[in-house]
């Protein structure tokens, strides 16, 4: 089967009040040219700031910047099929899961719809209340399962937690979210490139080199080009290694056996897929760390172990 471009989907989970809706609005306001489709359970408590809404048509709200918001009611997969049919007008789908939904299960449902691919399960927690919630008589196991599903765990409202307890909270979360990278946030303000990765105008198409992202105090990026063929699996595993501490890595590489592949690493999860349009002449990778700088020598070591011994250029961010 020929590889076709797939629409990336981010599943946004977490209990009521954690800050999912604030994050959705933050992403829409900082979409970076992406046309984002937000899919929500219902319009009961409208998840979109009023000033972003331009119009409404049936179960679809049109938003500024070519973005949309739609409800799927109780039928998630039917909603996703509708979005897949609109793929040419959308760059990225964000599913805002209900407070009791298991985001990992939603991620699995994506494989039922041709043309969609899971980018990441992002779970938002309220740093102040998550431990109390997790001890709730009724919700305990639901919260625990949500945490366990996360690729990226946004520890929100960190400003409301006493500084000397943050370390203990993060250790507690890390134990319950063993596959996740933790990202601290206030008011759900996390860079869109970190939450959604590369999509829309930033998508890696194999022709134009990946644009280095703006580094801020909060996160650091490194962009790499190389000519060698690689062991893509080994490379992906290396990039996902917790010791390296990357939040994301994405790019395309020429695998020694399987040819051109896209590499996508989110937290500790990685995936390899045939490239839709293998016109690249050099392999490319962009890596992001959050809350700490990327250890360049450790990264070089990962590349070396994947048999990339001739790094053409390493472009660190300005």
């Amino acid at each position, binding site marked *: 089967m020929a590889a076709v471009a797939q629409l990336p989907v981010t599943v946004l989970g977490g209990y009521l009040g954690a800050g999912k809706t604030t994050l959705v609005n933050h992403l829409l306001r900082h979409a970076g040219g992406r046309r984002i489709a937000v899919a929500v359970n219902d319009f009961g408590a409208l998840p979109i700031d009023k000033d972003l809404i331009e119009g409404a048509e049936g179960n679809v709200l049109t938003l500024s910047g070519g973005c949309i918001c739609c409800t799927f009611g109780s039928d998630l997969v039917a909603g996703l*099929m509708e979005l897949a049919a609109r793929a040419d007008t959308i760059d990225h789908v964000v599913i805002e899961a209900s407070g009791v939904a298991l985001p990992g299960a939603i991620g699995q449902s994506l494989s*039922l719809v041709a043309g969609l691919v899971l980018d990441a399960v992002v779970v938002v927690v309220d740093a102040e209340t998550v431990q109390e919630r997790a001890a709730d008589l*009724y919700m305990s196991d639901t919260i625990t399962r949500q945490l366990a599903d996360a690729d990226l765990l946004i520890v929100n409202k960190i400003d409301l937690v006493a500084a000397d307890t943050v370390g203990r909270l993060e250790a507690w979360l890390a134990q319950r979210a063993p596959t996740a990278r933790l990202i601290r946030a206030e008011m759900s303000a996390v860079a869109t490139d970190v939450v959604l990765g590369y999509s829309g105008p930033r998508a890696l198409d194999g022709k134009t080199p990946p644009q280095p992202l703006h580094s801020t105090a909060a996160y650091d990026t490194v962009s790499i080009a190389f000519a060698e063929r690689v062991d893509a699996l080994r490379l992906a595993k290396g990039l996902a290694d917790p010791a390296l501490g990357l939040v994301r890595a994405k790019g395309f590489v020429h695998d020694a056996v399987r040819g051109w592949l896209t590499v996508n690493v989110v937290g500790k999860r990685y995936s390899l897929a045939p490239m839709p349009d293998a016109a690249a002449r050099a392999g490319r990778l962009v890596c992001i760390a959050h809350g700490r700088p990327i250890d360049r020598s450790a990264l070089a070591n990962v590349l070396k172990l994947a048999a990339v011994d001739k790094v053409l250029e390493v472009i660190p961010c300005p």
Partner: protein
Amino acid sequence: MTVTIFEASKIITMNPARPVATHVAVRDGRILGAGSLTELAGWGTHTLDRRFQDKILMPGLVEGHSHVSEGVQWRFVYCGFHDRSDPDGKTWPGLRSVDAVVARLSAAERAMTEPLQPLSGWALDPIYFDNRRVTRHDLDRVSKERPIGIMHASGHIMNVNSKALELAQMLRPGIDHPGVPLGDDGLPTGEMKGPDAMTPLGRHVGLDRGLLASDEPGLRAFARLCVRKGVTTAADLANLLPDAAVAMMARVGAEPMFPARIVSLRVLRGIGPQEAIDHAIALKKQSTDRMRFGAVKIVVDGSIQGFSARLRWPGYYNGAPAGLWYVTPEQLAETLERALEAGVQIHTHTNGDEATELVLDVLEAALRKHPSSDHRFTLQHCQLANAAQFRRMKSLGMCVNLFPNHHFYWGDEHYRLTVGPERAERMNACATALATGVPLAIHSDAPVTPLGPLFTAWCAVNRMTSSGRVLGEAECISVEDALRTITLGAAYTLKLDSEIGSIEVGKRADFAVLEDDPTTIGGDRLRDVRVWGTVQGGRVFAADTI
């Protein structure tokens, strides 16, 4: 103002002041009284109708939890294990093997003229085929060119053939979903479990969920089925009730020969608590005699046989995780509070005992804010409640609508696999509910199990599984209690007990017309009572000619 006096061999009234009578007088679709001909003649000039002189009349049966989509199902090929009769009165013999299912589908396939039209079936239950799973290869024997889909009896699983998978772009490797088992070839076996896995196939096999909400012919077929089962009022428990559907229901319900009263509940789905309450209030004003609106249904958890019901400790007998919530406590609390404030009745679907406990906790807190003396919030299914929970229901003024049909259809599975022996014997604790004084109804959840309150009553009286095991003798109830439960009991949970549920002065002239006397035939034979038809609002409907 013509008065009709019906004469019957016996009239069971459910009115303790006059428990039996020989005659009932009717005017304008309502009951003037039940008694002797001499007593009733006092109402003036009348016509004596003696067509029921060898029949038994009892109050029209009330189905407290069904879905009018049962009327739509019969357009599809019946693939169930047990015999079942359709709205036209034809009994379809149960199918005892995969080969028998394939044979019936093949016969239906040969009769189809449109080459690409999907072939749809329903009520498959492979549990009875020694759990031999049905695969796409079985259905490919029926046709490789025509898409085929068969819904299981539970409504939670669908089987499809290769053509259907191909049309849905699912005959491909790389599908990784717990609801889609894969064969050795890495391709789906054709068994699609759960709503997510079924959705992509639905439209290709004629089992689109949108279509399964009822339409005009479906509603009429459902009402015909009611006549065959002696039902004069049935609850349609979870409807989105968009304007077009409400208008259609009002139109069909107003047809002079529409033979049933439908109570349709707005399900909390796709809208928030405030919108749901507002919608219910607006709908209530559109109620007619035969189409009633105004209550809200909330689905709190999943199903026991699907392992998605929320169970308290120690959870499922086979160790499956504790199930799924379909609502947060916060959303539930907001809805209950707003409903109490506005006087809107709420029915909550809780299968597992943890879901039941959550509703009890949340309602207790909501009642402290909005004390209400006659809310009649009703726990639907509520299959695993224990005695302490029934005591709390009583204190909080709740009703319960239990699901004894489960014992017959899935009781053996509950004993062996889902909840284990002790809780299987306690499930649907009708005797405890009555002893505690919790207002009780019992239901079929048709089309999940067949519509038929007399069968449901048999299940509550005998608690027998399909293999013949009696599941919890201590929870069996008497025939008398069962008959009151399928009339007045269910009417009470729908807040209709002042209008229906007994044969006495002032109530609607709704009767079940029976060939056999359910009070003397014996509890073990209750399901064999033959139904002649109904009288609904004074209009006579014979099952034979409906």
